[in-house]
């Protein structure tokens, strides 16, 4: 994979169409931990650009002094009593893991670590 680097600067709030290059798509795929073939990259770059062009219509809405809405209902700081309760059975959970050992999830070598 070529070094995709950072994508080009977004179009700001002007509403003009944003170009999503193949290297932008490669960069995004790497961030998302997706191995994507060159053919797929071309397809996704085109399709994502079409969706982003459409979605950029949000730019035409005046949101001056409008707060972002992250949650439809005003629930904040939801707490529960700090009481011990049953948790999931460890063996049942680990039985579903691709690999486990000694009561733990097992993973391949972490990059940079000695084998």
């Amino acid at each position: 994979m070529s070094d995709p680097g950072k994508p080009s600067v977004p179009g700001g709030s002007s509403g003009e169409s944003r170009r999503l290059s193949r290297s932008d798509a490669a960069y995004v795929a790497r961030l998302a931990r997706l191995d994507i073939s060159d053919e797929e990259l071309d397809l996704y770059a085109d399709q994502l650009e079409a969706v982003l062009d459409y979605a950029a219509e949000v730019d035409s809405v005046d949101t001056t002094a409008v707060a972002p809405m992250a949650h439809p209902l005003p629930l904040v700081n939801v707490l529960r009593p700090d009481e011990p309760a049953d948790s999931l059975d460890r063996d049942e959970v680990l039985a579903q893991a691709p690999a486990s050992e000694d009561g733990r999830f097992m993973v391949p070598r972490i990059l940079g670590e000695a084998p």
Partner: protein
Amino acid sequence: MSAMGQAGQPASASAIAESVRAGSTSARSVVEAHLAAIDREDPSLHAFLTVLADDARAGADHVDELVSRGEDPGPLAGVPVALKDNLCTRGVPTTCGSRILEGWLPPYDATVVRRLRAAGALIVGKTNLDEFAMGSSTENSAFGPTLNPHDRSRVPGGSSGGSAAAVASGMVPLALGSDTGGSIRQPAAFCGVVGMKPTYGTVSRYGLIAFASSLDQIGPFATSVVDAALLFDVISGHDPHDSTSLDRPGSRLAEANCPDSAQSVEGLRVGLVRELMDGTDDPVAQMLAKAADALSAAGASVEEVSIPELRYALCAYYLIAPAEASSNLARYDGVRYGLRVDAEDLTSMNSATRAAGFGPEVKRRIMLGTYALSAGYYEAYYGKAQRVRTVIADAFAAAYQRLDALVGATAPTTAFSMGAKVEDPLSMYLSDVCTVASNLAGHPAISVPFGTDEAGMPVGVQVLAPALGEAVMLRVASALERASASLPGIPAAGRASTGRASTGDPAPGRAPGQVGEPA
């Protein structure tokens, strides 16, 4: 126990529960009739990914035992229910329509599943869906598409297409789906059944595999408004396992929506929303006009309203939902559950696993969301879309200052042909244009079957209400349901008999391979 037939069985959820609780029909006979219907219908529909015949029979026998002991088996006693396969069931495959979760056995039940069991419902199977609920046609399932029971060359809608088709074909009287941008209401419209998205926070999402957490909500499919209310009553109510769950008791809406005692819409102020009518196909627009007339005739004051801000709902949705999905789906990394593709180091293993396990639409949305959340873009896309969300919620609030409920199309068209939109993601996304605003605002909305197009395909009319406005929403929906009875009917599509219970009928015409009679 006397032999029970498939004919003459009560077909609606309310009738089944009433009959089983009264001891006039056995839960076992109900479940046998529905398992036989699944055997008969599902090979040509592919609504189910898993059928739980033995579990359902065991549950039925338990219900019958409670009845025989004089104990209360619960409000859904003996009612077969299907679950969208993104709801966790302990020890039962839960795939989300994805190869990445193929073979995974959840170590716990979703809260809605526990509540269904406690209410006496019989879980008969898990239904097909677009992978991770991302799609509007159920064609994105890794396990093949579901077909529309009214015309097998057409899609059932999505993403809860399996649940919609299962109810529309009479295989089950009730099913659960999830609705992130219309995934209950749009397939309900395409299949000619009732589909309801409740207010965000009224139904626990614990055990619902997350797609877009600020939008996802579980809700019912049913053949009638009262049955949808009955199921909503059972699954709603506070759950400490979901921190977005509202601290309120479960609803009690079924009684108010019984056909015998339903409240009229007299005096209600209903807005016909121009933005949820513009651009719809002619047959849909014609049915909307008839729906408005019907509500007027029933005593509501109906006026056309414009909420221009709704035009931005779909763009905001297609930034917010993929952004949240890209974050939620980061957990499928080949470590704790599901698929792993081995590689020499961790990052390569993560990337190879995700490439092999996710289908094209899921990858597309993960990439879109990752892009929208990446450094330098967050405010321009996700941040902006969240502000637009506030603008839309405020616009709804202004409309509800003088209106009790809103009405519009559920989808701009009736069910489209298989394959018509798979190559063009944006055109597929546009089929959600009428439904996404309710998810952004967190409001309830319901789709009610209301007539058909010239090809006989069902049309859905959508009723919207403010947050926690389910009662008024269901009143309007019930009025539309009553009015729809005078329209040219929706074809039966294999729907089970609607006759009331009559015991002792012999089972007619059983096909080979059907389930046996209870002993």
